[in-house]
């Protein structure tokens, strides 16, 4: 039986790169903020899609649940909760609205989805993977974003133990990646942005982290280039 995967936030960046890598070997359900018509052309052919705006956590989880039911899926082998967004700003000027949306999209929606998906994952002895960020230890330039990712880390540390033997739980913290997220966040990384990992590289690293079964896994910035050249060298 082909494995069944859910990837949230798969309309761009890292999520889309992961979806493209997996499309040939698995049945995919992808999510994003936008309507299907707006994103259809870029998604891998054959992948199912549902719009699930995570700024309303409960509605987003409901939409995913509805899509699973329509597909007739009663099990999920892997759910990657990757959708995320944030704002780059001086935290002393951040609005209440920005804090709330950031926490809702990145954390509250993940909690709602984790509760919704548990029975599906359990049916397949599946795996829940949360996408955090190396910023989760705290970041002056994106304080609420970093805080939301810390929340995911705390959730993963607890759930990994609670669900041990039922559903495997992992959190992966990627480092800076050259996706549209920085621009959407109002952040200009400057020349250093050219050194950010490509989304395909980060997607491959996340897959390797998933396969390792470890948690938490951090994919630090400096390691991308180094790891790439090291593996090439080892294979010679």
């Amino acid at each position, binding site marked *: 039986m082909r494995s069944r995967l859910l990837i949230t936030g798969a309309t761009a960046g890292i999520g889309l790169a992961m979806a493209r890598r997996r499309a040939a070997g698995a049945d995919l359900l992808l999510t994003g903020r936008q309507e299907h018509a707006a994103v259809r052309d870029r998604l891998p052919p054959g992948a199912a899609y549902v719009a699930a705006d995570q700024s309303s956590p409960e509605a987003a989880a409901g939409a995913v649940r509805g899509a699973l039911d329509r597909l007739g899926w009663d099990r999920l082998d892997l759910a990657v909760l990757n959708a995320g967004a944030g704002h780059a700003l001086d935290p*002393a000027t951040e609005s209440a609205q920005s804090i709330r949306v950031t926490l809702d999209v990145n954390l509250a929606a993940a909690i709602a989805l984790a509760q919704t998906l*548990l029975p599906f994952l359990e049916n397949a002895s599946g795996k829940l993977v949360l996408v955090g960020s190396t910023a989760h230890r705290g970041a002056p330039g994106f*304080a609420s974003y970093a805080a939301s990712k810390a929340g995911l880390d705390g959730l993963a540390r607890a759930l990994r133990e609670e669900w041990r033997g039922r559903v495997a739980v992992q959190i992966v913290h990627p480092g800076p990646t050259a996706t549209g997220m920085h621009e959407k966040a109002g952040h200009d990384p400057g020349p250093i942005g050219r050194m950010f990992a490509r989304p395909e590289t980060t997607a491959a690293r996340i897959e390797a982290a998933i396969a390792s079964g470890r948690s938490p896994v951090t994919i630090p910035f400096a390691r991308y280039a180094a790891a790439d050249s090291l593996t090439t060298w080892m294979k010679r």
Partner: protein
Amino acid sequence: MKRALLTGGSNGLGRALADLLLQRGYQVVSVDRSGGAAQPAMLHVTCDLADRHAVDRTLPAILAAGPYELAIFNAGASATGRFEDIPLDACLRLLAVNAETPLVFATALMQAGAVERHLCFISSLSHFTGYPGAAVYAASKDVVAAYAKGVRKPFAAHGVSVTLACPGPIRTAQAERHAPPGADAARRMPPEQAARAILDATLGHRRLVIPGAGPKLFALAGWLFPAFVTRQMKRLIFDRLDEAVW
């Protein structure tokens, strides 16, 4: 007169913090869901801190009652039990009280120039381990911890110090309600002792305070051996919880 803003000042650790602040000559503005006993030099503001609209409605009055020398974000709730047994609505309320509202208060105070010197965020010792049996609570406390670390520098540029407090178990009614059956209350720290350590650290511009020697060792162990300590937490707490409480 020196003024202090405190959330959740009517019970437990917050009550001890309020008493200590009053003793030290502060006028205290306490924000609570249910109000509290009237005391001279203490103003109670009633607000459900899990309710966004209530927070937005009440904030202007809270800012107007400043400026404050310090603000301590202490109000917090818990939810214990298996993650999937706690209704989503309760999870979201918990996130709001413990994580969202302190952040919203902090930026509102900073923007209004309503806090002059110190902010203190009360997180939890679980920040150094993991907390199976209180997954959403643990997540919310990690939010606050990472936020406090992140804003320390940018807020210092405005002359405001930020202290992160990670207390272990404290002898309060809340702890009693959420502890597994048979847990030993005597091993929880008296709230007065935790309050003293937290207030001193806040006034002393300290980055981090973990009241008590036992909790400090526990934090160190969690930092060194996170997976092992989290498994112990599972054995000690999660495996012994007999029902979900929120």
